[in-house]
């Protein structure tokens, strides 16, 4: 996939890596870049050789916010007609695990991009923030929703209102970040973890992801029903039979993703 202008993509084993590649502007997200990220993610989502998708930034930062120049002259009608955030909705439909590796900073749209991934690894020196409020707007690609669902109303309002930068340590304490890693080894450690998940039975990983995401949005009763259906569904898989057989035979299972 070399047709992209603003991102770099590659695979390492069963892990696909998408790297934002506009380092001269700290990977500020313009519309084309977001489209490219989503396009790459969707392609990997349908690629049988890929089991986990890692998202990272080249250069000194994961991603600065949206490209301000691009939207400075927009009005509500052009924005409505452009419907740019529809791309972000597509990102939420990716079925395979996505992991963001954040170094430097993830601000505004960059933070929203990181929050759009399932898991988040951060360099010790990374900083997160929603500075939109400082320029008289607010997050538009899910910031108020995803952050609130992650850390609760009280804390979310504080960070969204002040626009201040949050350290990786704080993000970890708040449950936004899974692991805080020394900057030098961020990608290496993220890849190690991704490779570990890539060895798990893919259908389980996939249906667990789907069920957990429902837990965030559904009332408990509906979520329980949904979980049950996915649980039943896995009994149609070869991996379930292999997994249980291997358990009985006291040997390591060999999963095929079928």
């Amino acid at each position, binding site marked *: 996939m070399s047709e992209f202008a603003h991102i770099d993509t590659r695979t390492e084993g069963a892990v696909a890596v998408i790297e934002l590649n506009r380092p001269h502007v700290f990977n500020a997200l313009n519309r084309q870049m977001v489209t490219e990220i989503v396009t790459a993610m969707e392609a990997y989502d349908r690629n049988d050789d890929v089991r986990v998708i890692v998202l990272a930034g080249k250069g000194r930062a994961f991603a600065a916010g949206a490209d301000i120049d691009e939207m400075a002259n927009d009005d509500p009608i052009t924005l409505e007609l452009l419907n740019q955030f529809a791309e972000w909705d597509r990102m939420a439909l990716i079925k395979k695990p996505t992991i963001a590796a954040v170094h430097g900073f993830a601000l505004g749209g960059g933070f929203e991009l990181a929050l759009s991934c399932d898991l988040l690894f951060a360099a010790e020196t990374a900083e997160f923030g929603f500075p939109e409020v400082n320029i008289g707007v607010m997050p538009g690609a899910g910031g108020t929703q995803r952050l609130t669902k992650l850390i609760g109303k009280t804390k979310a309002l504080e960070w969204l209102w002040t626009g201040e930068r949050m350290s990786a340590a704080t993000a970890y304490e708040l449950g936004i970040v899974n692991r805080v*890693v*020394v900057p*030098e*080894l961020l990608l*290496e*450690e993220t890849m190690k973890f991704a490779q570990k998940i890539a060895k798990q039975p893919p259908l389980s990983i996939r249906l667990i992801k789907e069920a957990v995401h429902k837990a965030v949005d559904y009332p408990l009763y509906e979520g329980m029903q949904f979980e049950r259906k996915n649980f039943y569904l896995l009994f149609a898989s070869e991996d379930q039979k292999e997994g249980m057989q291997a358990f009985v035979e006291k040997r390591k299972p060999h999963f095929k993703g079928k």
Partner: protein
Amino acid sequence: MYETIRYEIRDNVAWLILNRPDKLNAFTEQMNKEIVAALKQAASDENVRSLIITGEGRAFCSGEDLAGVTEEMDHGEVLRTRYAPMMKALHRFEKPVIAAVNGVAAGAGMSLALACDFRLALEKASFIEAFIHVGLVPDAGNLYYLPRLIGHAKALELAVLGEKVTAQKAYELGLVTAVIPQDTWEEEVQSFAARLAGMPTKAIGLIKRLLRESDHRSFEDYLEKEAYSQRIAGLTEDHREGVRAFFEKRPAVFKGK
């Protein structure tokens, strides 16, 4: 480019010289900012592999310039906006830093010396926790560093009694690495810094990080940090050179890479 400090490089060693000798190098807002800028410059300059902080004239640094202290001053905000950025920059600084304490280090001037990795003291130098004499508490990270360096009991003694600590006494407390006579002061400081500049710079930075981690991490977390650090050190050219030199039975030449 700097007005309140001087910044010079002598053979891979950066000298950050506080330069308000007529005010005993007391801190001003401008000086706080210039120190931050110089630290940033030294951090990103590959030619710099160790840093000396010292004072021009007869003092190291006398702390906050009391001439600027007013009735309306919000001392907390002064610390947040002026001192915290400076102390954080120093705390983050990965290359070895030596405080060459050439005279009195009082108040926040003492804090500055405490935040460095090594303290070399001129024989006539002294340290003084001056804060208590004006009814304040030691600031600029002072009581974070002091008990870690000399223990709780001695830290409390110094901070509460506020007595002058001579260079010799500071040496006995373990606060300074060496006391140096006037005649050989500058060359001994430079040669100590040059020695550090010839060492594996990355490994020194990682040792600094690990020691910081050991202050507040659980043992299990610490061991994980240790593994990270050794992985990083294991990837350096200096590590490869060290091993090569060991087998070739020659002194290693470290490049800080």
